[in-house]
């Protein structure tokens, strides 16, 4: 199978539900999603389109897919009749895109290329006011040479190689790179912060505050690792006044993240069905969830108690959204 197995990635599944939660909150605050269409890269199983159909049946959806074979597979998996499948490369679709309605647009990339940022800028510039744009990017660099961090090189050589690496990165992404980047900014546990800053710069380039027009109001930012490390940003294109309203609407929503610079990690634990059923009897709960669930299990699911408590806290937050994987014998 060419496409990544979206349905087998629990953290991505949670991230997908965070978008649903935000949309549900907005719907409760008088957002009429019958005025919206959902546009995304559905993958072979159209999972996100199925979700949108389940929670927002009033919204039509468009899937962009350049591979004809995948399109054929999508036709087989169409979850509802409001899905339109377009056999077209994303960049061509974005070039030709003209917003007829408001939209929820998910640029669900699996890689990290300069063209991703150009397309993000194009889309936030083209969509109608109050449209929501989500982008997913890979937060790992394929050519980051980890051996250089292990002291295998002389200090001079290391500095030289680090500068070369920074120059290569700047040559590709220089239009969006933030001030003060150093080699350590690219470590895999931190690089997602750089990507968020790059997207913030890209959004500011499209909507400078000094021009006093529209802006890109951040609604959520997350990072997770199922197989590769990924970063996701969700925001709304709106006026300054609307951005205040939206922030009020999402106040207290634990699945939103309204400030730049603090992406939330999604890192749900792998639990057996038996463990999950055991824990779910104690959910939901508001405070001290990690500690309580840890006591309920009475053993560590990670190396230390602290790690186990943190992962169980994540489980408590996202348990409703975690898919069950079962082996079914014919």
């Amino acid at each position, binding site marked *: 199978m*060419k496409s990544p197995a979206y349905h087998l990635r629990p953290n991505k599944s949670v991230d997908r539900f965070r978008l649903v939660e935000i949309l549900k909150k907005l719907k409760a605050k008088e957002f009429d999603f019958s005025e919206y269409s959902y546009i995304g890269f559905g993958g072979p199983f159209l999972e996100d389109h199925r979700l949108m159909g389940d929670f927002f049946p009033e919204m039509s959806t468009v899937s962009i897919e*350049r*591979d*004809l074979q995948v399109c054929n597979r999508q036709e087989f998996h169409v979850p509802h009749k409001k899905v339109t499948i377009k056999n077209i*490369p994303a960049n061509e679709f974005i070039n030709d895109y003209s917003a007829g309605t408001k939209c929820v647009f998910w640029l669900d990339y699996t890689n990290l*290329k*300069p*063209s991703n940022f150009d397309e993000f800028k194009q889309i936030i510039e083209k969509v109608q006011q109050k449209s929501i744009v989500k982008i997913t990017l890979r937060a790992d660099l394929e050519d980051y040479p980890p051996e250089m961090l292990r002291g295998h090189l002389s200090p001079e050589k290391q500095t030289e190689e680090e500068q070369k690496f920074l120059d290569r990165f*700047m*040559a*590709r992404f*220089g239009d*969006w*790179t*933030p*001030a*003060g980047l150093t080699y350590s900014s690219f470590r895999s546990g931190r690089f997602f912060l750089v990507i968020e*800053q790059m997207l*913030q*710069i890209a959004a*500011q*380039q499209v909507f*400078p*505050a*000094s021009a*006093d027009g529209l*802006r890109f109001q951040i609604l959520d930012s997350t990072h997770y690792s199922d197989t590769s490390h990924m970063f996701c940003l969700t925001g709304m294109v709106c006026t300054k006044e609307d951005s205040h309203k939206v922030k009020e609407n999402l106040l207290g929503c634990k699945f939103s993240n309204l400030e730049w610079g603090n992406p939330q990690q999604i890192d749900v634990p792998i639990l057996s069905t038996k463990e999950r059923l055991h824990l779910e009897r104690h959910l939901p709960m508001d405070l001290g969830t990690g500690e309580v669930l840890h006591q309920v299990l009475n053993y560590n699911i990670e190396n230390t108690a602290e790690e186990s408590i943190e992962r169980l806290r994540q489980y408590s937050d996202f348990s409703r959204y975690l898919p069950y994987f079962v082996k079914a014998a014919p």
Partner: protein
Amino acid sequence: MTEKASDPIDSKKVDARPVKSFFVSMLTRDIELEDAILDLLDNCIDGVLRSGEADLTSDKPYKGFWAKITFNEKCFEIQDNCGGIPKSLREYAFRMGRVAGRPHDANGSVGVYGIGMKRAVFKLGENCLIETQADDDAYEVIITPEWVHNENDWYIPFKKTKKTSKPNGTHIYISELYPGVLAKFTEDKESFEAKLLKMIETHYAFIVNKGFSVKLNNTEVKPRAIKLLFDKNPKTEDSLIRPFVFKAKRDDVEIFLAVGFTMPIPSKPEADRDQMEEKKYSSEDAGWTVLCNDRAVLHSDKTEMTGWGEAGVPRYHTQFIAVAGIVEFRSNNAAKLPTTTTKRGVDASSQLYLQVKNKMREGMKLFTDFTNKWKVDLKRLAQFDDLDELSIAQLKKEVEKLELNPTKNTALNGEQYRPFLPKPKKALKNVRRISFKKKVVEIEAVSTYLFNVNDRDPSDVGERCFDEILKETKK
């Protein structure tokens, strides 16, 4: 405060006095905020030169001198240790424009019009404190909103201060920022800071390389200077990769020009892919950089301003991504440098610049022709291997070892070095390039069929298709 116009009939004179709002509101419209801040940095360098403490004969004449720029939601600040504004300049430095009697500027400075610092201050905000300490003086000057709005008062309050043990220098503190500036310093902080940093990295690359330290919001500026490929050990003198160089002196202005390659030229398929897919090669370093007394007034320009697309030189295209040039103008009389009042552009009507531009085109054509001749060859040129990347300072040292030829009886006499670039073998004349476009999904399908992977280079896929069919025809 408004001013009552005098009656021309009674006084037999009409009022032609300047209006302060012209300086405050109008002059600032002609300059971008980033350029205004660079103007303040120019003043720092002029200060170093004025102090006489820089050893201009050394490789690092500005070593030990620094400027720190900080901005936030409350203020903008620039602080330096560049010698301060001496007593002799006190009466002139704050005038709107340059008046007769002002002491001569130090050699190598770029100030001409006497407007940079004031224009930058008026661009940023309404409240300004300038503290300065020189060998012979220490004082502060305060510009208030009341002063800005008072059309009659052209004198700025000045106060002597006590000399301190701090190094001599100037500290400019601006508050009550204008709304557009405040928005850039707060809501657009990330993009503005990144852009300003990049501008300092490129426009001040040569000065930072000479030892000057600049910090922007505590981030140390790293120079990003153009480097040109130079074959130090050629196997033969008639086939080598080196820049075209031209040197001249005209009317107190020294000119040094070099144009060449910054990296191996991309093959045609690479250049095409660059346009079609992503910026595989960055275009950032390509084009012309023009320096006036070490400050870049134009960086990596790819327009007609620097000769692209005129007089036989092709327009810039990504296939010329490896072609870059540097022109350096140096003079002790800044008024003779071909730059605009903002010092971030070239004076296109300058006779000197127009003459130098002829040479820029001549040199550039050598490398665009070379690129056009070689782009059909998909294999990388061996001559690009093991070349040195030289900064302008290193290049000048190498040029001293070269035999330059005089260019006499031309509009601009000087001397030049014209490299003999490698020429394609004649056999290539029997070769034709085949080029066509196909859908990406189809290329991937053929790639999988031929190579068992779907992401083989499209040119490889096309070439293999041709070779397979060619085999068939020979059966």
